[in-house]
């Protein structure tokens, strides 16, 4: 693998200085790559987006992000922090309502995970308080851990602004979005956290196989 990347790098370096003559003259020699075999869909997603970092749940349990939280599951992810007074409580409330509706529509488990963007102040105890305050029970974990691990997750999951300075000033610039997906089927997308809970539940069913649905997906009546 290292050999190949080095070869690729050398190939591209070799092409650069002669780039203009390549255009003026006949075709350049084809850069021949040796590629790694294609990954399965879930491996594509895992390698790029889901580092297996250690985290701590609001119940104080130590878990790994991929192995324990995502693997083989249908999940919904969002970002929050306990002292947030605007968006986070609203999205938490929305997710609670959506989860109730979802229970009427699906037969399978859907796991909810809320990742703090302020892991230093959001200790497991503090997250436990937050969960209790919102009457969160069941398959919904609030997650904290080492700041570098939470930061890596935030960025990998696309919660970063393309301008690094803007992003450092405000880590919540994209936090209105929920990620959801079916890990084994590598079906993933995003939902707006401020959406109507009924619609959030509806979109989550998009990644639930037909056998896991209590009713057929709603195709907009009327």
């Amino acid at each position, binding site marked *: 693998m290292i050999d190949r990347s080095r070869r*690729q790098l050398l*190939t*591209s*370096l070799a092409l*650069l*200085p002669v*780039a203009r003559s390549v*255009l*003026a003259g006949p*075709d*350049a020699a084809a*850069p*021949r*790559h040796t*590629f*790694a*075999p*294609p*990954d*399965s869909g879930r491996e*594509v*997603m895992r390698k*790029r987006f889901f*580092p297996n970092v250690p985290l701590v749940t609001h119940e104080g349990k130590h878990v790994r992000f991929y192995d324990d939280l995502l693997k083989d599951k249908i999940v919904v992810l969002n970002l929050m922090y306990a002292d947030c007074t605007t*968006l986070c409580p609203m999205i938490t409330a929305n997710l609670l309502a959506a989860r109730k509706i979802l229970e009427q529509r699906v037969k399978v488990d859907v796991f909810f995970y809320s990742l703090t963007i302020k892991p230093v102040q959001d200790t497991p105890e503090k997250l436990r308080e937050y969960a209790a305050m919102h009457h969160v029970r069941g398959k919904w974990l609030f997650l904290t851990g080492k700041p*570098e691990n939470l*930061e*890596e*997750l935030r*960025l*990998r999951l*696309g*919660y970063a602004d*393309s301008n*690094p300075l803007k992003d450092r000033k405000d880590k919540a*610039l*994209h*936090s*209105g*979005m929920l990620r959801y997906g079916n890990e084994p*089927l*590598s*079906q*993933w*997308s*995003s939902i*707006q*956290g*401020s*959406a*109507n809970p*009924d*619609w959030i539940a*509806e*979109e989550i069913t*998009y*990644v639930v196989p037909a056998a896991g649905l209590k009713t057929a997906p*709603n*195709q*907009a009546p009327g």
Partner: protein
Amino acid sequence: MYFNSRGEKVSRARWKEMYNAFQNRQELIKAGLTSRRDLFRMGLLTSAGMLVAKSGLSSWNGGGDCRYGNSGCGTCASPVTTPWTLPMPIPPVKQAIPVSSLTGPAPTVNPNTAINPATGLAYEGRTRANQAPALGFPFPAGVVYQVTQQQAQINVSNDLPLQNLWTFDGSSPGPTYVAHYGAPVLIRNINNLPSNNGGFGLNSVSTHLHNGHTPSESDGFPCDFFAAGQYYDQYYPNALAGFNSTHIATNGDINESLSTLWYHDHRENFTSQNVYKGLLGFYLLFNQYDTGDETTGFRLPSFPAYDIPMAFADRCFDPTTGIMAFDTFNTDGILGDKFMVNGVIQPVLHVSPRRYRFRWLNTGPSRFLQVYVTDLTSPSTPQPFYQVSNDGNLLPHPVQVPAVALGVAERADVVIDFSQYAGKTLYLENRLNQTNGQGGPSGSVVSGGQGFLMLRIVVDGPAVADNSVNPATLPAYYALPSVSGSVAVSRSFNFDQTRDGQWQINGKLFDCNTVRFKVKQNSLEEWTFNGGFGWSHPIHVHLEEFQITQGAPGLYGSSSDDHNDYSRWGSQYCWSGCSGSSSGVNLSRKDVVRLIPSGNVKVRMRFRDWLGRYPMHCHNVIHEDHAMMLRFDVATTGDTNSNP
């Protein structure tokens, strides 16, 4: 702790370098200097082709450009590919079949909801009856097709592995439908896509006929999706808009004729993934004037020999596996660094020295294009050509242009006379620089030969007869139907993003079940589109076309980066949005309009002939998937909600 944009840990020093690179890049973009040659001239590039270390131009790969098959000009770093090795594919023309040859039960006016014992699902995914038969259209239609959505292995470059793409009938772009006004079409659309998606894509689909004057149940509404194992019979009446309207007395208005349409997946929340994966193709409409035969009617170059559809796309490929990669959690917009035409990276087209009609289409997902014809032996020489249509509509007459700007889903038919270029090699070049999903004037127009070369055109074909009309003689096509008269309802739409990253229209989010407003059939509506700060959006309305009465955007560029003396093109050059009424190529009917940051565009239209649900949305498919869309219904009674 510091991270790069991929979430990989980097040192503080490297992060500062990344930020410097970001700032440098913004400055260079403002200055219009992003080509390798410019960088070299500025001393930012060493003679070995490496960027000067402390001021690199990309946060993670050293700022390649894509002109020569290099990588890194988008938001990804694909493997290097050799350009101009594969011929440009021309999608096959779809062949009709007898209705008796359809797979499965015979077509029905009402949805066939009987359970297919083989799948346990309803045979058909449709939920509403066909409207056309009640209005006198034949059923089943006289022309019947069957198309299958399926995975296929596609070669996009000899330097990359075969790609498992999602296709119509095994090709991407899928087959081209050649349809005629007055000949309704029924397409049995079979979903045979696998659940194994290779990392992105949902095998639940809704196929939209883009720009079609199509009844709601056949339009490809985002929530009219159907599952693998089901079919959906789509009925395209191919009738002139206005055939059932009250404002004109004819059986449809010939001036509403359409020419270049395309079809693509529109599955709610997964459109971007499914179209990226290949679910798109062309649908061409001909009539007694636009005949496809250069000896009759408007005498445009003959189809298919000299009338060629071209779908532009940009994509990312994984540097390790060489497999097409989708940036799943990027909700701003995805920019690829590999430019494809009809599904192949930087292909070659051989032409004869005569006139050709090219039908250009920007399929996205997010990038804005400004396409030029470039002769690299004299890259700064303007190579003007004639634009004959805007989106699916022929213009009142051809307009000579230096370039064509295309937001996602916009189309332009152009006529290029290659007799003046016999023996030469030319390129289609996108000169609009764009560095993130925001698009538009945050990019700049680079000088000739410094942009992204998308297609090599070699004028080495045999000399052949050319019976097409010279567009320089300014032949008349269709007149513009009137949109004057009293407006029944004025509505205003703001396209913006919340501070926490949710795309919205008028501060609201899309959902299929919420009817945001009702349009009274046949009444004249005026809509104002307002762009939020910092972002460009290509806005698309289903069912009907509008005319832009104010604020139409022209070509990108500015006097400071004007390499081609735009002033000679008069009103074509109006990049920041022309404040007055439309002119030039904007004096047309359209179904997509580019909305620039803080721009205001006024359009007028009537919704005729069909009733039911339709969406209006941003056609940056990433924004569209994430709620920058709304549902409106056309009904016999409407509302007057001015800010729905």
